[in-house]
Each structure stands twice: as C-alpha cells, then as structure tokens.
C-alpha cells in the first residue's frame, strides 16, 4: 500500500494513541509497561518524552513505529489503524512513513555508510540516479560525506548515529521516531544531533523522541513524562 507511494492525504492527527496498553510476560510473570496511554501528535509537531529507565518509552515508540503491537487500545498513524495491519503491511508502513533512529544506532555491519543510507530507498525501488543523489545530499547534511565508503565498524559512535539519522531520512518519511538518540554519545556529538533535530523541525517533520538530553528536550513543542506506564505533561 505504501511502498513506492508518498502520503498525499491531509490528516489532522499524525499520531493518535487511545487507551494504549502493553503487557510483557517475563518468566511467567506479567509486567504491564504501558497502562492506558493516550497521545495525539499533530503534523509538524516535535514531541519529547522522558522518564526513568524501564518506564516504557522505547515500548511506546515501538508501538507508534509499528515494530510492536499493543496488548489493547488503538493506535493510528496518519489515519491508518496499525492494529489492523498484517506483518507485510506494517513493513511497508515502516519503510515509507517512519524514520527510526535507535539508541544503539543499529547500522548494518556488512554495508558501507552509503549502502546503509540507500537500502530503504532500494526497497521502494527508487531510481538509481535519485538514490545516488539523495545519499550524497543526506550524508552532507549529517556531515558524513567523507565517510561514504566506510563500514560501521570503522566509525565512532557519534558518526554512526549521524549515519543512522541519514538512513532514517532516506525515504523522506513524514514521521521521525528517535529513541534516546544521544544516549551513547558525548556532549560534542550530542550537540551535532541536536542541530540535526533543529533542521528536521524547520523542515516540518513530525518528530517524537525519547530523551534525557536537555538540549533536545528544550527543542520540543510539547513535552511528556512517562511514569509507571502513564503519560503526563
């Protein structure tokens, strides 16, 4: 449905989560990570979520990004009910609508920097010429143009995270989800990531990030705290 197509419809709500709950079973014991979370994020909005470790920030982002499914409740992104989609539809959704940035970067070790940025576009069968130009442009934006042919193992943590941002932007998704993007970085690299966020915000991207970084938190239009599985402003 999404692969190869851009979203053209005008949607009033970018993300809408209603009474969202998620329970994990660990060693026979059930742990309710999210308890009836309600959240509405509008297009172009920058939302920041903070909270102690284990409070469910990553789980919430995974549910919004369609990586995980809620135990109960509804979640819609750009008007699409994610709970109604099968695995392949969710894969298409993630490829086209969401740019995900993980705390641990998660670059593919066997692909070069360029290839890491290019592969989401290859899945959408974007013409080669366009891929080459866009990869070069994105790497310039994140300041990694000189490292295009390096493998992830040859980069520092900050550099890897910048590549991860370029990868998240490759299909020009309307929604960016960033899970503790500066969690493993030093101040200087964190500042670079903050600059990237500032740029994305100016481009009108909808951004949801979980972070403890004060600079990023300060950039947000709306700020939430997740505590005991509940979201508060």
């Amino acid at each position, binding site marked *: 449905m999404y692969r190869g197509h851009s979203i053209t419809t005008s949607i009033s709500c970018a993300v809408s989560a209603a009474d969202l709950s998620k329970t994990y079973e660990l060693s026979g014991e059930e742990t309710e990570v999210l308890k009836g979370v309600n959240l509405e994020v509008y297009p172009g909005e920058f939302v920041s979520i903070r909270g102690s470790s284990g409070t469910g920030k990553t789980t919430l982002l*995974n549910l919004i*990004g369609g*990586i*995980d499914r809620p135990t109960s409740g509804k979640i819609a992104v750009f008007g699409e009910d994610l709970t109604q989609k099968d*695995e*392949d539809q969710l*894969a*298409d*959704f*993630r*490829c*086209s609508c*969401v740019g*995900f940035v*993980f705390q641990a970067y*998660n670059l*593919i*070790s*066997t*692909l*070069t920097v*360029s*290839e890491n940025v*290019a*592969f*989401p*576009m*290859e*899945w959408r*069968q*974007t013409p*080669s010429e366009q*891929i*080459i130009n866009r*990869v070069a442009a994105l790497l310039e934006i994140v300041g990694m143009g000189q490292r*295009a*042919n*390096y*493998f992830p*193992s*040859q980069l520092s943590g900050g550099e890897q995270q910048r590549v991860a941002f370029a*990868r998240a932007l490759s*299909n020009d998704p309307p929604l960016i989800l960033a899970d503790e993007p500066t969690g493993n970085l030093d101040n200087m690299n964190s500042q670079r990531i903050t600059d990237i966020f500032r740029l994305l915000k100016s481009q009108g991207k909808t951004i949801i990030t979980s972070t403890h970084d004060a600079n990023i938190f300060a950039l947000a239009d709306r700020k939430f705290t997740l505590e005991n599985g509940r979201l508060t402003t």
Partner: protein
Amino acid sequence: MNETFFPLADLLRRKLQTSLVVTILALSVASTLSLLLFCDRVGLGILSTGDIMTKGLTAVLFQFVTFVEILVFAVGAVIVTFVAYLMMTQRRRDIGLIKAAGCPNGLVAGYFMTELLLVIIAGCTLGVLSGIFVDYVVSRSGDYQFIQGNPNYWLVLLVFVTFFVLALVFGMKPILDASRMSPIKALSPLIYFGLSGKKEFKPLSDHGLTWRLSYRSLVRRQSATLRIVALLSIVFILTTVVVAGSIIASDSTVSWIESSSDGKTVAIAHMEMAAQYDLLRSKFSTHFDQVERFNYSDERFAISPDAIQLLKNIPGVSEIDPRLILEEHIREVGNFTIDPETLATLPVGDSREGDSVIIGVDPSKLSLHSIQGRTIDAGSLSEAVIGDSIAHSMFSPNPSKGISLSNPLVQTVGIRGGSFTIVGVRVDPINNGRVVYVPIQKLANITDVVYTNIVFVTVAQSADFTTTVAEIRRNMTEANPNLDVIEIAHISKKNVGFLKSIWSTIMILPLFVLSSAALCLVGYLIAALDEQKKEFATLRALGGKSKLVVTSLAFQSSIILLSGFGIGVSLGIVVTLVILMANPLVSILTVLEIAAWLFSALVGIFIVTLIPAFSMAKSPILRHMI
C-alpha cells in the same frame, strides 16, 4: 564455581547448540563407523570367504568399497573438525566477556577445554555405540548372512581415537587463540571482518541488496565458509561416487550376469544333472558349506540324439545348443613374451593347477559376453574362454610364488592331454567363475565322453514361452521320464537380485553422511543467523519484510551448497568413471537416474537449511533487537 561445574552448567544452558553439536558429532562418528564396518564386511568379507561371487566382481566391488571407505573416513574427519571448530569459534565472544570480567587466561582456557572435552566424549561415545548398533542390525538383515560375525573392533578403536583427537585438536585452536586475545579484540566485531573500506557505492534492486548482504556475510566468515564448502565438496564426492558408481556398476555388472543367459532359454538335463546345474549357478549368490563331488560323466546323464531330434520338431523352438559339462583338473601353461623396451624374453605365467567346471560348447552357438578378449571362433577346436575366477587364481601375477608377469590372453589352459589357447575372460556366475568353455568336439576327444549331458533350448521371440516350454516338457518326459526342464531366467533373477541388493545397500550408505553434512550446514547457518539476528531485526524494523531473512539465508545456503555440489560432483564423476569402473555401461536412463538422486540430495539439504531462517522470520522483531 569449579572448572567442571561451570562448563557443564553452561552446556546445559545452551541446550539447542549443545545438542546440535553432540548430535552432529555422534551422527558423524556413527555413520563413519557403521559404513567402515559394513565396507570392511563386504569388501574383506567377500575377499576372505571367496566362495560367493566371481573374482572379477569381487575385485570391482572391493576396489569400489575400499575407495568409499577412504572417502567415508575423510568425510567423517572433516565433519568432526568442522563442528569442533565452529562450536568453539562461536564461543569467542563469550571467552572475551569472561576475560573482560577478570578471569585469568589459564582458567578461561580450562573452562572451555572442559566444555569441549565433555561434548567430544558425549558425541564420540554416542556415535560409537550407535555405529555398532547400526552395523549389528545391517549384518543381521536377511540378505547378508555371508557378512555376519563380530565387527572389526580395531576399526571401532581407530574411529573413536582418530575422531576424538581431531575434534580435540581443531576445537582447541580457537579456544587457545581466543584465550590469548585481549578482551577488547575477542569482543570486537572486527575480528570477523574480511571487508575493505574501498567499495564503490552502487544502488541495487531489492534482491541485489539481499544478495550483497548474503555475500558479504559469507565473506566475513571466510574461514568457516571455506571449511563448510570443503566439507560439502568431499561429501558430494562421496555421494557421487557412491550413487553414480553404484548405479553404473550395478547396471554394468548386472548386464554381465544377465548376458550369461537369455530370458527365453531353458535347460534340459537329467534331473540330478539339472539340480547340479542349478547349484552351479546358485553358488554366485548362496554360500554352500560343503558340496559333494558330482560325477558329471555318469552315463545316466547322457541325452539321447532322439530326444534332441524331438526338440527340433517342436514349434516355437528357435535354437538347440547341446553341451557337455564336466569337472576336470586344469593347468596353467606358461608362455614367453618380449619386453618391447629391452627386447628381452620374459616368462609369462607358471604351471599352476586347479579344478574347474569345463563346458563343451558348439563354438558357432556360443555368444558370450567377454569382459576381456573375444569369444571362441566358430571353426576353432583349440580355443577357450575362461571364467574370471580362474583368471584371477591361475592366470594373474602372484608375487608370493615369484610370478610377476601373467596374462590369460597370451596363455594356454591344459585339460588332460589337450591344450586350449585362451581368447577371452568373462564374468560368469556358473561355479562362481571357476569355469572354462571349450569346443565340445575336442572336449569329447580328450575325455572320451562322447555324449551331451545338458541341452539349452531357446524359444523364438514370436512364440509363446509358457506354451512352448510346456510342449518341451511333455516331449522330454515322453522321451525320458528322468529328464527335467529348468528355466534359466529363474536362477538368473536370483543372482541379479543378489547383486542389485549389494549395490543398493552401498548406494544408501551416503544417506548418513548427507544427514551429518546437512546438520553441519544447519549449524553453520544457525551460527550465521545468530551473528546477524540483530541486523535482520533492524532491517525488518526499518521496513524489510520477513521474507528478507529467508531469502538472505537461502542465498547463503545456495552459494555454499552449489559450490560444494559443483566441486564434489565433478570430481566424483571423474573418480567414478576414470578410476573405479572400467568399461562402464552408461545409458541416458543411467544419467537421468544419477542426476535425480544427486539433485534430490541437493534439494533435500537446501530445504533443511532453511528451517532456522523460517523460524526466525516468524518470530517477533523485538525478540532479536536486544
């Protein structure tokens, strides 16, 4: 926690990996041992008993079985070394972690050496016990009474010790390497990488990306990849030799046996003589403890000219071939030849002696399929064709008797006062190849037995066989109530069935080895998946579909399998046709049958290797993201 308890607990915790390694080791040891024991029984067993199958067939089978035996041993050894290496290479990160936690080098090596020892002892012991059990079952199965008896315990010891030592040596290497490595290096993904940073970026298609991921994944595990390709190559050499060899050898040898009798031929003889002829042919596939001396020249066995005349008048009879069967003492007559290089005169053969069945035939009616030389000339009175067992026992070099040069085709066989130039050697099931065919007229002259004691009657292709045989039977009973009519095809079928059963058993031998190889490849791919699981999960989280995992693993599996298959099958075919089987009988059907078997093996292994990929593709993304 002491040095024994920790590895034991660790092995129990990693149930899947431990059981897979122990299973592969056990399967490999068991298959190698049972195959070696079987080969030993079939090869050496037949050679030593010497009273079943002709010497020519025994030689083909023995050569074949010996080669298979060597290959089986090599395959087993390669599998064991691969498994031990793979198992311990997978633990390199764990070794790094333990070292990073402050464990001294000696203790780290001790932990993992104990773990390796426990696995090898379990695998080898289970393997030896299973191998002996399989050998027991096979040797007691209905068709192989001749290979009963105790297994060769030296082979059991050889397999256990060799495989134990190999597994230990090859398993130790990565442990010692990792225990000497710094924790940072042991934990670093860089030690796996064989990647260069100077790659030109070219966007590819969806499948191009999967191919690139798969190819580089294989490259970065270069050492393990080369090992598994080498392993599969040798496994496929074995499979090809056994499958192609068995089919070709079976077709060829069966055709030799079948050529000794026409399906529409019956033999007529006095009932005692008929029973003796039946016994002579049955010796090929049945062991007889003691055979009483039979007086072939007994006049009661003479078939009268009147009876033969009656046969000629029966409609549907196309050929009548009266023969005289006797048992005589024969002797080898030596000869001389000239060495083409030195021009020296060299003695050929000696004066060896022995007993043999002699069959007097009308040369014009003798159409024998010789494996060497030709048949007797129609007008000749002094030529002979001998069975391959006589050729092996009386007309082949025998260094222990100082006979370095011997060749039946340049020698002569002496029977009583007469001598016959040997013109052909053939595989003949009669009396297990201890048979000599000579012109009946000369045989009668030198033995004074002037009658025939068996008559072969061929029924015309156009005639109804059953009706004609019934008519022959009726006429012969009228001529002499003691005459019996026996169908040659019946005895022939029994011999062919026996031969086919031996070859088909040999053909299923690689099944065990193929199973071990498939499990090894699964083990390798599980290791590959384990290493790539987080990346596959990331790819799926970023929009890749579940089939990406399966496709990528399928690519990796195909590359490895096809490499091993290509190398193994080509070498296997060369070995089969050039080394093992002289004068092979290869038809289009044979080729198709071989191709079908090999292709089935390839597809079977391929499907098995995809199981872990399907299992991972179905599991939730987040399970592998951590």
